[in-house]
């Protein structure tokens, strides 16, 4: 047992040693220790190096606000994380911890040379230099600046852990499990509210965990705590520990991050490492307590200088004395109690230095009884000690004069600058804060949320006050929910209450330009830096913060914001509220990316939608491509084939005999009702009135801006019923757009829309033998060209399955699309596949579909059009019902620049050297012009084509329709390709093959 561990004291397991490693050395702590408390127990204060000057730094707090003791933690491959606060990292056997931002070692760090040169590096120095010579910026200055940046190192391999997330609904969410939170939980739960209490620490109790000497309702604090927690559980309160409320969002939504396994030696496989909770609470009680402020004085950052309240926590909660010989420096009563408790367990208190002239008599008396020297009305003007403080210089203050100093030896300094209410979550809601001039701090004022603040969070001090206030706020929360609530009464003995005065930096007898009084420890921001920022014209705290980086370290200003504000306000000679408080931004403490990702990782990052026929494609070696959320078979390579070869084979086979294609992803909407045809007339550009039931028509949909949004073949099933198809990616958009017009603009129409995309599996059969293959399977329908011509539809039976059969073609060949209920999709596919063997049937994917349609001159919305293309531009004005008075987008087609000459129009392209163009390649008229060239369009689609005997392409070209036959040029990086503008139909222009 180390000399710093107090036998039998604290909440750690004294009989249970736990070993871990720190910078390669084995450290043995006790169960319940954090890395920080275990290191302190062996006398180690030095735990890190600061960001800018690489100054040696010790742990300064005992909580999540720690700015200095940041370490890397690891539990093996893939399970390393930088910048972990040693004060929050619970130890377990096998934990590997490493210090950061130092080389070669924590004790001897080359980077500390920056500290020697600190006079050259005041706040914002980089804005003023590194500009000359200009070329040095990229090559010298920036790399040097950047290599000095950062604290820990990034993880380098993928994280094997999994993370979880949940929603939680509760009547009352209480943030903070200290006395105020516990009392609030009791009031609210007794009133019948469903209560959830969360605390970021390993156990609930808050300040009680550091104050075992207090008696509540006649019971010692810790036994009261134990029975109170049991009783809350019995009342149905959910208590979640190791759970940080990270952000307070709209309307009482609070995000929580729960650390599930980081403290365990051997987590179970199915346990997530962390879990994100998205809580929606009817009422919120914020009982987050207060954070102790450091004092700002020259040399206040040496290892061994610890917040007094944290030292009390180390002693009473972890049984660790932070040193043997302490000097207490304070402006608040609370630090005196730390001195008394430490003195009782053998730490010598060399002095209590209080900046105040007058201090409470009882404190003075107790100090005297313990033989502690007391120096009231004193300031601190310096410290010494390289890797650990070894003395402190204190001076009397008389009026505004700082008197002669005196050095006091010590191995630790316990400081307190008073307390700041924790209002981060409150501010996340954009609620208003009010400046408390006396306490020189902000207190909560108005909020729009259903929220109460309890205890130290609103400036109350002492355990009794917190309990009473908590009880009242819990009752208020319950009453707001309409539940009759009473607040319990509490009597507390030995409650150590106190007051203090707020300070800017402490007075000194030194030249202010020579002192280094740190405000933001991690970022090495000193009071001098803040004054420099003000001198240079930074007038708002937001400017000061950004210029100096004060408050931007990983503690996000928990330690530095109020001190920084008071110093800046002093420098400006303005009251603090006029200088403003920088906004507190979520998260309350740094939050693991993995927890925010939750389950959305790997295959579950996004839904992958698959068709009912997808398993067959997978089994048959399909190569897939993602299209919107779907995955679609792109091609079906035979052994050894690449895409081009496979696609060429699929094209040839389909045109020669028959190919089959899974078209199930096409969007389908059933439009039903007496006004169905009127609705279709208004939505689509085409006329629908004269389309007979049993017939199909190509439908074109515009946005109200006149540009092409979607297209598809639409079948009229009966007078009042249309089967609309959309593009794969457009299905949801089209449905939403139709519902919008129907509900909002035309609510009088008797027509209804139902999405049937996933009701039907759709198999396209294309090729001269398609009918021969299909005919034997069809019942109740004559498939002959006369009885069932191109663009027909019918309801029938295919292979015994109920079906909607469409005679349509997106290939230019005789084609059918068979829709059967999804569950039968694969069965039908397999039957057709088996029967198709006699015709050398081939399965083809989206790539072949693209080639075949391009040969035939059919466009693909989204590839050949891009949201800036009108029907006329795309060469499909024929799809517009000329006599229709109106349809969506019609008016926009008459706008001046839409009817102006020179618009880009969709044409075909054939290269003069027979090479294949690249999709996206740009087109010019004059290939010899200098850059920047005048581009007249680009290639939208380009394929090798067996049917045409050479590569074909589509392009949009300015005034293209009038340039058919002309030559254009496509300048590529290595050469310029000449191409001839053609029409878009390359294959079977008369459409004979469709009519077979």
């Amino acid at each position, binding site marked *: 047992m180390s000399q710093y561990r107090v036998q039998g004291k604290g909440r750690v397991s004294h009989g249970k040693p736990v070993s871990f490693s720190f910078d390669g050395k084995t450290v043995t702590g006790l169960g319940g220790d954090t890395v920080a408390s275990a290191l302190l127990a062996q006398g180690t204060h030095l735990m890190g190096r600061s960001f800018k000057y690489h100054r040696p730094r010790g742990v300064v707090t005992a909580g999540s606000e720690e700015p200095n003791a940041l370490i890397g933690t690891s539990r093996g491959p893939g399970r*390393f*994380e930088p*910048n972990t606060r040693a004060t929050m990292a619970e130890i377990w056997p096998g934990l590997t911890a490493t210090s950061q931002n130092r080389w070669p070692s924590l004790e001897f760090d080359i980077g500390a040379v920056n500290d020697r040169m600190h*006079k*050259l590096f005041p706040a914002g*120095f980089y804005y003023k*230099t590194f*500009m*000359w010579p*200009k070329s040095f*910026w*990229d090559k010298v200055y*920036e790399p040097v600046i*950047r*290599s000095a*940046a*950062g*604290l*820990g*190192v*990034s*993880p380098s391999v*993928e*994280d094997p852990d999994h993370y979880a997330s949940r929603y939680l609904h509760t009547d009352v969410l209480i943030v903070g499990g200290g006395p105020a939170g516990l009392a609030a939980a009791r009031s609210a739960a007794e009133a019948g509210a469903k209560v959830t209490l969360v605390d970021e620490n390993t156990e609930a109790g808050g300040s009680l965990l550091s104050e075992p000497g207090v008696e509540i309702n006649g019971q010692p604090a810790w036994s009261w705590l134990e029975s109170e927690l049991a009783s809350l559980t019995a009342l149905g309160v959910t208590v979640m520990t190791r759970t940080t409320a990270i952000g307070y969002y709209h309307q009482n*939504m609070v995000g929580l991050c729960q650390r599930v396994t980081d403290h365990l030696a051997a987590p179970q496989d199915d346990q997530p490492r962390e879990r994100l909770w998205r809580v929606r609470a009817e009422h919120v009680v914020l009982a987050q307590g207060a954070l102790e402020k450091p004092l700002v004085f020259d040399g206040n950052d040496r290892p061994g200088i610890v917040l007094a309240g944290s030292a009390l926590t180390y002693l009473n909660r972890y049984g660790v004395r932070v040193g043997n010989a302490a000097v207490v420096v304070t402006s608040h009563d609370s630090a005196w109690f730390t001195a008394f408790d430490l003195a009782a367990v053998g730490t010598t208190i060399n002095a209590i230095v209080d900046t105040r002239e007058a201090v409470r008599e009882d404190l003075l008396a107790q100090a005297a009884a313990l033989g502690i020297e007391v120096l009231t009305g004193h300031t601190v003007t310096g410290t010494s000690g390289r890797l650990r403080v070894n003395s402190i210089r204190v001076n009397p203050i008389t009026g505004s004069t700082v008197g002669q100093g005196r050095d006091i030896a010590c191995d630790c300094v316990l400081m307190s600058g008073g307390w700041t209410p924790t209002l981060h979550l409150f501010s996340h809601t954009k609620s208003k804060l009010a400046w408390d001039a006396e306490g020189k701090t902000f207190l909560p004022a108005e909020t729009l949320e259903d929220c109460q603040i309890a205890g130290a969070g609103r400036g109350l001090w002492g355990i009794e006050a917190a309990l009473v206030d908590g009880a009242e706020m819990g009752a208020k929360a319950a009453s707001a929910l309409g539940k009759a609530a009473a607040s319990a009464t509490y009597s507390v003995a030995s409650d150590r209450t106190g007051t203090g005065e707020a300070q800017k930096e402490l007075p000194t007898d030194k*030249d202010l*330009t*020579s002192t280094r009084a740190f405000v933001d420890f991690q970022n090495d921001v000193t009071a*001098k830096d803040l004054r420099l920022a003000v001198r*240079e*014209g930074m007038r708002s705290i937001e400017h000061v913060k*950004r210029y100096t980086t004060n408050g931007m370290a*990983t503690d*996000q200003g928990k330690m530095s914001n109020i001190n920084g504000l008071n110093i800046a306000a002093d420098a400006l000679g303005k009251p603090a509220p006029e200088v403003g408080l920088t906004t507190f931004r*979520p*998260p309350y403490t*740094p939050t*693991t*990316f993995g927890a*925010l*990702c939750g389950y*959305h*990782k*790997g*295959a579950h*990052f996004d839904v992958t939608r698959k068709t009912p026929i997808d398993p067959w494609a997978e089994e048959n070696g399909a190569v897939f491509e993602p299209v*919107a959320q779907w995955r679609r078979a*792109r091609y079906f390579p035979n052994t050894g084939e690449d895409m081009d070869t496979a696609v060429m084979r699929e094209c040839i086979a389909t045109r020669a005999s028959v190919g089959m294609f899974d078209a199930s992803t096409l969007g389908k909407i059933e439009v039903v009702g007496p006004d169905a045809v009127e609705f279709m007339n208004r939505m689509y550009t085409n006329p629908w009135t004269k389309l007979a039931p049993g017939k199909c028509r190509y439908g074109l949909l515009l946005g109200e801006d*006149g540009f092409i949004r979607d297209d598809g073949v639409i079948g009229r099933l009966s007078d009042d019923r249309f089967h609309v198809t959309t*593009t794969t990616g457009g299905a949801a958009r089209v449905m939403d757009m139709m519902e919008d017009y129907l509900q909002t603009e035309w609510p009088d129409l008797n027509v209804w829309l139902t999405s049937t995309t996933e009701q039907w599996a759709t198999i396209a059969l294309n090729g001269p033998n398609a009918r021969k293959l299909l005919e034997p399977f069809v019942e109740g329908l004559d498939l002959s060209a006369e009885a069932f011509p191109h663009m027909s539809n019918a309801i029938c039976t295919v292979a015994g399955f109920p079906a909607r059969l469409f005679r349509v073609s997106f290939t230019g060949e005789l084609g059918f699309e068979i829709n059967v209920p999804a569950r039968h999709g694969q069965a039908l596919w397999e039957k057709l596949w088996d029967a198709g063997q006699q015709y050398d049937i081939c399965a083809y994917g989206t790539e072949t579909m693209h080639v075949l349609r391009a040969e035939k001159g059919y466009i693909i919305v989204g590839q050949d059009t891009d*949201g*800036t293309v009108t029907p006329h531009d795309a060469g499909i004005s024929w799809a517009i019902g000329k006599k229709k008075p109106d349809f969506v987008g019609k008016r926009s087609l008459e706008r001046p*620049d*839409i009817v102006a000459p020179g618009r880009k129009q969709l044409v075909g392209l054939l290269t003069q050297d027979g090479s294949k163009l690249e*999709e*996206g390649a*740009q087109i010019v008229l004059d290939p010899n012009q200098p850059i*920047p060239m005048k*581009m007249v369009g680009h290639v939208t689609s380009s394929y090798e084509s067996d049917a045409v005997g050479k590569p074909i392409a589509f392009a949009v070209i300015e005034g293209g329709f009038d340039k058919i036959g002309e030559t254009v040029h496509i300048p590529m*990086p290595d050469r310029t390709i000449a191409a001839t503008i053609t029409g878009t139909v390359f294959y079977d222009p008369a459409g004979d093959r469709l009519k077979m």
Partner: protein
Amino acid sequence: MTHFSALSLLKNSLSGHKNWPEQWPDKEPKAEYDVIVVGAGGHGLGCAYYLAKEHGLRNIAVIDKGWLGGGNTGRNTTIIRSNYLYDESAKLYDHALDLWDGLSQELNYNVMYSQRGVMMLAHNVHDVQSTKRHIHSNRLNGVDNTWLTPEEAKEFCPPLSIDPNARYPVLGAALQRRAGTARHDAVAWGYARAAAKLGVDIIQNCPVTAIRRGADGAVSGVETARGFIKTKKVAVSAAGHTSVVMETAGVRLPLESYPLQALVSEPIKPIFPCVVMSNTVHAYISQSDKGELVIGSGTDQYTSYSQRGGLPLIEHTVAAICEIFPIFNRMRMLRKWGGIVDVTPDRSAILGKTPVSGLYVNCGWGTGGFKATPGAAHTLAWTVAKDEPHAANAPFTLERFTTGRLIDEAAAAAVAH
């Protein structure tokens, strides 16, 4: 005003940095100005600077309702690039890029323009087509942008995962090497200091409550929290609040303001050498010179001036980052914040004259205004000074919404079929 240099830094260090002067004075408004710029972000301050420097005007004020640089200038993820598809955009952003290069020297303020390269990922066949279309167009416009294979992309940015079995595999990328990032605050401060040096008045915490027009309909001045100020020319550069300001002059705009969020991780040693953007999974990331990973999120679905934004969007953004960079899964989010972005129907800016004589507007930059800062400021100054469009801002008119000549970069990258 002290010239900034290593020498002046050294000299001042000897006197304890006690003699640095104010970088810009905080002014009270005068009764009249030749030009009033509304909005003291990078765009507004830059406009004032170029008006003074290049057009010889001296009696200029920049007025802000809050602190200078407190809006989107100080809230964005600082990406700078010019590899836009359309000639109009490429020209304007490349003009900006030319000005970025040399801005530190021009302003004598190190804005830390870091040409680290911006890589835009392609995750599916449609992305590849669209990316190549950009690359070819950029090449012929003289804008640098090159295609990288997945392996080349990984070599350029080692944290990138190019696992072909990923939900959104990387099929390639476009890289603009000249592109990069800059220190956002320094841009506002640098323009402010340089403008102040040329006599521009910077008036903070002075909301403009109305733009006044005379009997002839032309601008006659602005009402502010500190009273009426006479002027014949007003240039509004108020980002998310542009609609509110312009409405007071009777000009209604095709503009909507949305909350946009961004976040940073805890600082780590340098690991991320460039900027990576993926429009398909909505991930935008770089590493700051402080070591934080700087990550851009998307806009919430509803219009808002609350500067808040919800948690779900942050969850999605971080998941998108970890999809492409799985090694960052155990990193931690340090801070997230919100801004208000003003978005036009074609996602391109409105930059220039308005139907009101003497009233000019610079708005509608959506999520991409930072990169345009010097270009927008420079060309708007031209337009304000000469009352005519600059060649680079001429297409970015209000009229295009009437005639239909939109500059729709977003539609051009339309999601597929």
